[in-house]
């Protein structure tokens, strides 16, 4: 049996049966349902997050195939708290449950402490919630990875959470189908002291080079949280502006 970075699994006949219940370990200590959930993420739209000292940006190519779709109805970036946003890849329906949860956690923090929640705490809470869906019977894991981005008292943050409930902080990260290709470009061109504008351009460059189809403003979603501004989704014109800059 072989396992790739995101849990690429090739099943051999002897392993059959260990993927029936999520609470059952395989003899070599793996939880197949969790790994399958990661597969769902691998098939998802490519979603990127990029962090600079001035702020964070989330960029998603919504991969809209039909011209008849009302593009605004497809949501992959969500507003969680004043200065926190979240982007998803994988099963969007699963992600929406987590989005609801994260929003409530953020509000409970305000009621309890009269303070905005800090991003590491929010990420831990959402990850703990995901983890419970890998240990109890009768459920399945969330088939979605999240990029949580925001600003708090400590500055900008960017986290990735995966279906197992593991999470990691990144300077620049991608999830979904073309993750590896995008990260290759990030590893080459990312600079810690780049401007947020430049970072967004780099994110788009990554998406453009990794994707099979041309990027179009109608299917692109960009959200930023910066020192100056709270969570904001860019307008179609603004997205257009960034698209022009990469050509």
């Amino acid at each position: 049996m072989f396992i790739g970075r995101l849990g690429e699994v090739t099943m051999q006949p002897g392993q059959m049966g260990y993927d029936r219940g999520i609470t059952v370990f395989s003899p070599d200590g793996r939880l197949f349902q969790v790994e399958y959930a990661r597969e769902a993420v691998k098939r998802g739209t490519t979603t990127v997050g990029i962090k600079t000292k001035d702020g964070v940006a989330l960029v998603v190519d919504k991969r809209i195939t039909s011209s008849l779709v009302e593009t605004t109805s497809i949501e992959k970036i969500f507003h969680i708290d004043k200065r926190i946003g979240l982007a998803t890849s994988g099963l969007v329906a699963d992600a929406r449950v987590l989005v609801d949860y994260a929003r409530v956690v953020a509000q409970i923090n305000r009621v309890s402490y009269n303070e905005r929640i800090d991003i590491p705490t929010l990420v831990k809470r959402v990850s703990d919630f995901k983890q419970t869906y890998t240990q109890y019977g009768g459920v399945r894991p969330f088939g979605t990875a999240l990029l949580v981005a925001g600003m708090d008292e400590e500055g900008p943050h960017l986290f990735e959470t995966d279906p197992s409930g593991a999470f990691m902080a990144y300077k620049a990260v991608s999830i979904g189908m073309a993750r590896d290709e995008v990260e290759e470009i990030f590893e080459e061109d990312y600079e810690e002291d780049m401007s947020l504008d430049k970072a967004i351009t780099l994110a788009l460059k990554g998406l453009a080079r990794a994707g099979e189809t041309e990027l179009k403003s109608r299917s692109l979603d960009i959200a930023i949280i910066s020192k100056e501004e709270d969570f904001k989704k860019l307008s179609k014109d603004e997205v257009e502006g960034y698209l022009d800059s990469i050509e």
Partner: protein
Amino acid sequence: MEQNAKKGTTTLGLVCKDGIVIATERRATMGHMIAHKNTQKLFPIGDNMCLTIAGLVADGQLLARYLSSEVELYQLKREKEMTLEASATMLSNILLGRRWMPFWVGLLLGGVDSKGGHIYSLDAAGGSIPDNFATTGSGSPFVYGVLEDHYKEGMSISEGVDLAVLCLMVSSSRDSASGDGINVATITEKEGFKEISEKDIDKKMSKINKEKGLKKV
């Protein structure tokens, strides 16, 4: 219940230039009887805060334990110090949760966080009000008189300690439910929580006694 309740107290808190001063006297009463003469009414919470209790001793002690463990859990989980605003809000929520069977207390929460020194006054209904100075308990009317006259914004910690001692000497001489010695503590960014020693308090009392003729307590 009310007959047997140990209550009647003076506590006070002052925001000073580099931190806060917080103080209580030590008497616990049951009706007209002095039930205890060495009552701890001042509880350090975490590294940067302190709670004083007035009212029912049992309720106050319970809340001090609640708050102390909530603050430690918060700090372990988030790897950062809890702000005064956060713990005052949490405490206010706990108090309001008992709307119909209240904790019979008047609390002061004082401390220092990244935004400076703060004193919060909390009542049994859950009201939570930050102020430059506050006092609770049966001796508070006397103390407010002194503080309104003597408190100055931006006063130093040592001036604050002197003022706190004076206030408690005043309340101990005019409120029958206050007396039997005092506890004074300071919280500063540099040194954190620090209690003033018996010896130093005695010195300060002697000085005030000489100047104003107030009895030492």
